[in-house]
């Protein structure tokens, strides 16, 4: 009959209306600023720079290769290379970013910088409450504001960070092995030469 569906619909909304006062599980809304749900592990907002150890400046993994700067679709990254070099995690001297700025008002959170980085130096943060009253300066982050410890990275993306650490450790082990091999080869090379000319009296070093 005409109107039957209307009454059914009215009954449904009435049930919801009354039910929302009775049962708490009907109200699924999270009252955001007071209560918040844990963010999913894969959530991401804006990039940050990872550093190892206690000193952020010494520990920055970034070597200022500028790949991310070139790949960034909205061009929100600005990098200036350093003149001098500092040792990286393997101990090899590398240049480092004298300046590393990200304008997060331009950043579109695409994660391409993270994907192209060969040094696992830039990762995605999940901090999204970045409101500021300074539209330009407040949203332009320099390398100090961007630096986050590896522990922080482990806290926000545990699985991913563990993988990264394993990979880095493997690379470091490989590099050390290689260095050892090189040293051994050099020693082996030096040994017969020394055996051939013992008369010179030089001590092997």
């Amino acid at each position: 009959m005409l109107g039957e569906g209307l009454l059914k619909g009215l009954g449904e909304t009435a049930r919801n209306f009354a039910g929302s006062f009775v049962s708490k599980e009907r109200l699924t809304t999270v009252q955001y600023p007071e209560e918040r749900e844990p963010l999913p592990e894969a959530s991401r907002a804006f990039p940050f720079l990872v550093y190892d150890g206690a000193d952020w400046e010494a520990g920055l993994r970034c070597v200022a290769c500028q790949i991310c700067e070139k790949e960034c679709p909205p061009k929100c990254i600005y990098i200036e290379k350093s003149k001098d070099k500092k040792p990286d995690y393997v101990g090899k001297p590398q240049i480092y970013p004298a300046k590393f700025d990200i304008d997060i008002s331009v950043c579109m959170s695409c994660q391409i910088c993270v994907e192209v980085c060969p040094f696992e130096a830039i990762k995605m943060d999940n901090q999204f409450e970045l409101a500021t009253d300074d539209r330009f300066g407040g949203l332009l982050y320099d390398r100090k504001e961007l630096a986050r410890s590896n522990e922080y990275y482990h806290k926000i993306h545990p699985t991913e960070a563990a993988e990264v650490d394993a990979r880095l450790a493997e690379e470091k082990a490989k590099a050390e092995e290689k260095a050892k091999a090189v040293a051994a080869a050099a020693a082996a090379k030096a040994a017969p030469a020394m055996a051939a000319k013992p008369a010179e009296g030089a001590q092997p070093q």
Partner: protein
Amino acid sequence: MTNMLDQVFVLLKHRIVGLVPMPVQPILGAVLSVVAILAVFPGLFAISVLLERKGLGRMQNRIGPNRVGPLGVLQPVADGIKALIKEDLVPYSADHVVHFLAPVVLVVVVFMGYAVLPMGRNMTFVPMDAGLLFYFAMGASAELSIFMAGWSSRNKYSLLGAMRAVAQMISYEVPLLLSSVVIVMMTGSLSLDKIVEVQNQYTWGLPHWFVFTPMGFAAFVMFAIAATAETNRSPFDLPEGESELVAGYFTEYSGFKFAEFFLGEYVAMLSISGLGATLFLGGWSAPLEILNVVPSWFWFFAKIMVWICFYIWMRGTFPRLRQDQLMNFAWKFVLPMTLLNLLVAGLWRFMGEGWLRWVVCSAILLAAYVLGGRIGMRSKKFGPRSYRYAE
């Protein structure tokens, strides 16, 4: 004491008016009444907006606004302040004068309707003999303001919204009027005070409200439908259709003018609820004889608020109609039903007292409703939607 409380506003007005010299008294009396109307109904508007937002939230299993004040009760105040401090934009190519006048006209004509509504015993601002006629004349003027708004904005959405609004409001004006004519036939008067007087009688403690007669009930239902469409409320909110027309005829309005449209819409809802309550639900008369100790004005406002709550309930339930469904429903179902209802009202009058007229009139109306519904549903005039391409 009861009588005193019932007439408290009337006595207060007399007391204040008595303070000034004789020649000024009528003017002061009029000003006082106008001020009272202008203070009370925007207040009710604020309450109904809050009720609507909280109620709709609950129907969708949300809490609704809960930030401003305890439980969000100060939300309307915050909304009002926000609307007032917004920039008032007028489109460059709009017709400035008409664009400015449209919301003013709306608010004015909507408030004019209150002049004839009896809000309690002896509480009609202008006890007019042709009050109902005056009310409908004012109600019809709201269409003018809506069309002014849509036309002067120079915006396709505004214009489309205004065209829809005018088509819809004129279509539903007809059943609205014809369903009220039944009441005029039963009372023999266009005066709203007289209509309430007739309903303010009791048999075995029960009131003589028109909604309790067969054609009165049918007219009540159709009046409610037509009133919903008249005030552009969901499910008949095509003129505003925010999913397709931005905001319909008031797309180009901002700031205080937007607030005026918003106010006009809700005050019109309150006003047509008041008219519906007056015509069918006994106006200010109490629902039971023993409840007459409660002041009459309380009953009037209680009935308005119940009606508003029903509006909110409908808005939370029904999806918006399509334009052709809307028109089909008005012209092919509601209008024939109202015409039939007029005949039934005549029949009721000439069948005289007795139980027979109750049976006959109810049977005719029920049969017409079922039959009309069947035919309409079968020909897909206003039944479930059928999609030819998007299945």
